């Protein structure tokens, strides 16, 4: 992602620090994660301390400062999913991929993340890969789900 694109995003939000979250979200959508040099650039352009930008980038769960895999697996750990066995589903995914929550596989195919509720509780336990929903998951469905990618 080049600085011209960042400039365009910044302009779309009127160069205002109040839109920092939206700006960072848009950058992450394009760049897959939040690269350091872009965060420094954003801080400089908005005229705010870099520490403030880093505070946002590390506070919210949606942001990643590390490159992520081509597919992001989000396992919902909301209450409804929890009581229906979400932890076992997560453990199975971890075991299948050999990574822990928050990590990326060596081949950069998958990044595994957990979310504290995706708001689709009737589908629980729920796993979302990129934008595809896998509802009513259980441990035996995991290998098949991963084979889709």
């Amino acid at each position, binding site marked *: 992602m080049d600085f011209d694109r960042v400039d365009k995003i910044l302009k779309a939000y009127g160069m205002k620090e109040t839109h920092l979250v939206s700006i960072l979200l848009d950058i992450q959508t394009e760049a897959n994660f939040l690269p350091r040099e872009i965060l420094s650039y954003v801080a400089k352009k908005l005229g705010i301390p870099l520490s403030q930008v880093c505070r946002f980038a590390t*506070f919210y769960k949606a942001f990643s400062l590390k490159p992520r895999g081509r597919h992001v697996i989000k396992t919902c750990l909301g209450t409804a999913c929890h009581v229906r066995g979400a932890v076992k589903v997560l453990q199975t995914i971890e075991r299948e991929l050999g990574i822990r929550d928050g990590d990326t596989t060596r081949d950069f195919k998958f990044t595994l993340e957990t979310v504290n509720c995706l708001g689709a509780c009737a589908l629980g336990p729920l796993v979302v890969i990129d934008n595809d929903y896998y509802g009513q998951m259980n441990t035996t469905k995991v290998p098949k789900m991963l084979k889709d990618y």
Partner: protein
Amino acid sequence: MRIADESGLKELKNSVLQERDSLRPCITICGGTGCHGYACEKVIAAVENEIERQNLKDKVSMRVTGCHGFCERGPIVVIYPEKVFYQRVAVDDVPEIISQTIINSKIIERLLYTDPNTGVKPVHEDDVPFYNRQKRIIFGNNGKIEPTNISDYIALDGYGALCKALFHMTPDQIIEEVNKSKLRGRGGAGFSTSKKWAITRASKKGMKFIICNCDEGDPGAYMDRSLMEGNPHLVLEGMIIGAYAIGAHEGYIYIRNEYPLAVRNVGIAIKQAEELGLLGKNILNSGFNFTITVHKAAGAFVCGEETALISSIEGKLDGPRPRPPFPAQKGLWGKPTNINNVETLANVPLIIERGADWYSKIGTEKSKGTKIFSLVGKVNNTGLVEVPMGMTLREVVFDIGGGIPKGKNFKAVQTGGPSGGCIPESLIDLPVDFERLTEVGSMMGSGGMIVMDENTCMVDVAKYFLGFLDDESCGKCVPCREGIEKMREILTNICKGEGEEGDIELLEEIALTVKETSLCGLGQTASNPVLTTIKYFRDEYEEHIRNKRCPAGVCLDLISYSIDAEKCNGCGACVRPCPTQAITGEKKKLHSLDQEKCIKCGACFETCKFDSIIIK
């Protein structure tokens, strides 16, 4: 094309209605997130194709609506005008629906919902037990409109309340009407909406703001999402009326980025409302200006807290701030700011249009109107239900929810998200309203209702919530940051079988400190899951601590899997899913499970069709 005034809106409504033939069949397909999870977009495409293929464009129309609430049975298709209710519709069913139901008016039996308790198959949506016990005054229109089409909303008298407010009422009259309706905030503590508005209105300083809080973070609750996705104009209308009442000209909608469909739909709705002059400068030529900006949230439960939300919009993020000063006095950029939850605002147009007298007839003495609950967890009919305040838990869980799956026993209901508590079976006849829930140690919260059965371990539930809060605490104040972590450590030990005598008392002591001394609502209510589970399920804690046993069979370190020699018929189905090859045995002979190798993942338990895997 701007609408000039009140009569202009009426004309628009009439012209929309004239264009439509109310008797013409209309296939509505639920496009909510729940149904998306069941691939409803494929059904939508199939219906489009089939209408095209059979050349029925003039005879039947189609509408992709917001969430119908009955997410368990998605994808849901309802055919108007008769409201034929089909559930679990697959792509292959579509040609039949068109050729049978639309053309020949024949009902397809297999797509109807079957009541598991009576075996009855109701044909019409209103006869489905899940719906007919509800009172869907807020949520009902979700199934009737296409959220991205403002005409649909206007056809149902949309923005009529705004006209009434702008042209026939003063701001004080609006606040008085809301006051008479006794509307209380639907996002958490249940503070009086009119009082909040009155304080913000009374602040004399120039700029004021109104914020719509759609950072629905309570795990297990998704009514705000469904309202924003399914009927965004209703929320906008409520927000504009609120802004007019308090004298704000700028508004913000703070919405979770995890809700992409809601972000999209509210963005479209704002644009449409602006084009028609229902939002922006000089609304309906009344002289009132109001603009709305959408702010995305990026996943932080604490930002649902008003002051943290404000600091996030300011681009500062210094966490929750000490109160007083309250946002109504000193909020966004130091200006008086009113923050309302999505569902609260969705109630406003209704109160204005139909009057406080009508509204306040619904509900209990101190809690008026209806409440949308997300009925989820171990319950047959999961989904969103809207019921009058004061309905008992039993009615919600058993009559609407259809009871517990697989004939298991009901154990508890958890309400109020991580700030709430667990209500045991002995209180199942509790009427649900703000006061009653608080009395039993829980709270209304945003309306999550998670049903738990005999296989749910209450210590594990308490540990789960503390894990959630430990993850979501901003870390600013000591009791919340350190206290929650300590409680979590103790609970983890108990679940591992390393609990000691005195742990329960220590938990209670920490819980009280966190409750009484934390900076914001997150910490002040964080102890509720612990305190209520200790209060109602103390024996379960003691069983873990003294006998190192998990009665519900959940805590991994305290359970073991084994094979029931009488039930196992040696089918071998469990052998392959076992990731550690712990199960061995010849075909058609009793299998055995090696405890050394077993990692208790539960794969065999899920696979076995003969209940021969036992958890102890």
